[in-house]
């Protein structure tokens, strides 16, 4: 029997850990599943200077604080890799590689992203032999040696600066013409001011060469087409990331062409009911620790709201054995208040033959959409959990009483 949770979070990076914090504080029974170390990519980012309030810190230190915060709030955390998910039913099933099975009423997916590879000759063969994607892990090897950094975004620039603490020289290979980098201005200034960093502009790595370990890179100048060989001991590659969503391709979840999860930017809701996405694996404009945390907070609050709505819907609309008259109203629509009042009187007069359910569309737009209610007020009549008839009442509904009575008098098909 699978253990049941209100909320299951897959992935323990900044997004997942923040979601866990919000989930626990909302008193949801929360499970956090992480396959390796907590902290995601942030845990292997040495320099972090843009987490508000922390000043200049390191990724591992910050992620340790996140983790302690999560543990302090009593979130159940397991260290396993998710191998299979069934997200379409209301009870979502998560299975792990080791064979454990969990059931969640809501799920937040935070699988994160991983470094993109260059795809050049020699890259795979020299991985761990001079080719690296993690400066924190490998910088020590290059004490007093010469290294190359490929890329020019925030990660490339920050890791290049970190590498100067160890290496004799750091050569950055930048694809753009002289003076142009994708990284933030502040970090760029620090690169230009650092005497250990040299920049090769408008060039790409064509090949990585060596004999057992890396010995050189072949560079191609994009302006002239000229090839040149640069001796080096190490090649650090920071050319963006790819989402870790391959395991989600057959689940019915909407992914974009590049594999990022498509979610509503306001609520983090995916196309699957009760499934939310947060962090770097989501299609979004800015991928930072702070935006991952933001995603996680929003996703957890949206998940909590979803759970409350579902519970209400189950109890008030879908579970009763009697027919249910559901009134879709909104405090912002005065006419809907009149309708609600009439419905209350009607239901009272029928003495228990019909139940009344109030659906506040101002708070629960999602529930309204689920039953195709686009305008307020509206009424939907349910029998044993199924909608049998509905009426839009924006122009008023004079025959509400007759309509309801005709339905409950008629034998159900």
């Amino acid at each position, binding site marked *: 029997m699978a253990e049941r949770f209100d909320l299951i979070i897959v992935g323990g990076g900044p997004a997942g850990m923040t979601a866990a914090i919000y989930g626990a504080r909302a008193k949801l029974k929360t499970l956090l599943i992480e396959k390796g170390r907590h902290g995601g990519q942030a845990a292997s980012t040495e320099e972090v200077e843009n987490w508000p309030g922390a000043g200049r810190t390191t990724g591992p230190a910050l992620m340790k604080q996140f983790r302690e915060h999560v543990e302090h709030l009593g979130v159940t955390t397991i260290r396993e890799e998710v191998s299979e998910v069934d997200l379409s039913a209301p009870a979502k099933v998560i299975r792990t590689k080791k064979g454990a099975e969990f059931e969640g009423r809501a799920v937040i997916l935070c699988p994160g992203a991983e470094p993109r590879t260059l795809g050049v000759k020699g890259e795979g063969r020299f991985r761990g032999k001079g080719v690296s994607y*993690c400066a924190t892990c490998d910088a020590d090897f290059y004490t007093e040696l010469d290294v190359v950094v490929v890329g020019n975004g925030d990660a490339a620039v920050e890791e290049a600066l970190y590498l100067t603490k160890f290496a004799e020289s750091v050569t950055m290979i930048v694809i753009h013409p002289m003076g142009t980098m994708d990284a933030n201005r502040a970090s760029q200034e620090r690169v230009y001011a650092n005497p250990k960093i040299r920049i090769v502009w408008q060039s790409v790595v064509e090949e990585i060469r060596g004999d057992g370990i890396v010995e050189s890179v072949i560079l191609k100048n994009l302006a002239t087409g000229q090839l040149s060989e640069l001796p080096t001991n190490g090649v650090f590659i920071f050319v963006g990331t790819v989402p870790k969503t391959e395991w989600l391709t057959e689940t019915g979840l909407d992914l974009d062409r590049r594999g990022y999860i498509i979610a509503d930017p306001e609520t983090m809701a995916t196309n699957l009911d009760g499934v939310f996405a947060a962090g770097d694996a989501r299609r979004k404009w800015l991928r930072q620790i702070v935006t991952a945390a933001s995603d996680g907070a929003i996703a957890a609050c949206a998940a909590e709201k979803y759970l409350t709505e579902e519970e209400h819907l189950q109890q008030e609309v879908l579970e009763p054995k009697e027919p249910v008259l559901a009134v879709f109203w909104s405090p912002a629509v005065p006419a809907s208040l009149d309708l609600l009042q009439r419905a209350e009187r009607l239901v009272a007069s029928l003495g228990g033959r019909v139940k009344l359910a109030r659906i506040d569309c101002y708070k629960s737009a999602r529930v309204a959409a689920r039953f195709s209610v686009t305008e307020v007020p509206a009424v939907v009549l349910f029998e044993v959990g199924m909608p049998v008839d509905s009426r839009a009442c924006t122009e008023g509904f004079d025959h509400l009483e007759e309509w309801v009575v005709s339905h409950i008098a008629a034998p159900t098909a």
Partner: protein
Amino acid sequence: MLEVNKETFEAEVLQTRGLVAVDWWSPKCDPCCELLPEVEKMATTYGDRIKFVKVNVLENRRLAIGQKVLGLPTFLFFKDGEKVAELSGAEVCTAEAVEAELKRLV
């Protein structure tokens, strides 16, 4: 788990008959530190059939480079002093991958 260094590597690994698994790690390498407790567990499970040792590369940089280890975490597997298998990099060198390799070798 036995800690070896530049003085003892020759005797404990290269001159050892049978299988030896060498965990190259550094206290600064987070993936390595996360992996270490799992490896300690495997060392108890497989310890009778394969010898487990670890090398701190911070103190043995030359030894690491001599063995062509230039990235962490790395696992090297030796049989009668000859390297027979290798796992390198945080994505490749996972607890599952190490255990799969152990099962294959013993």
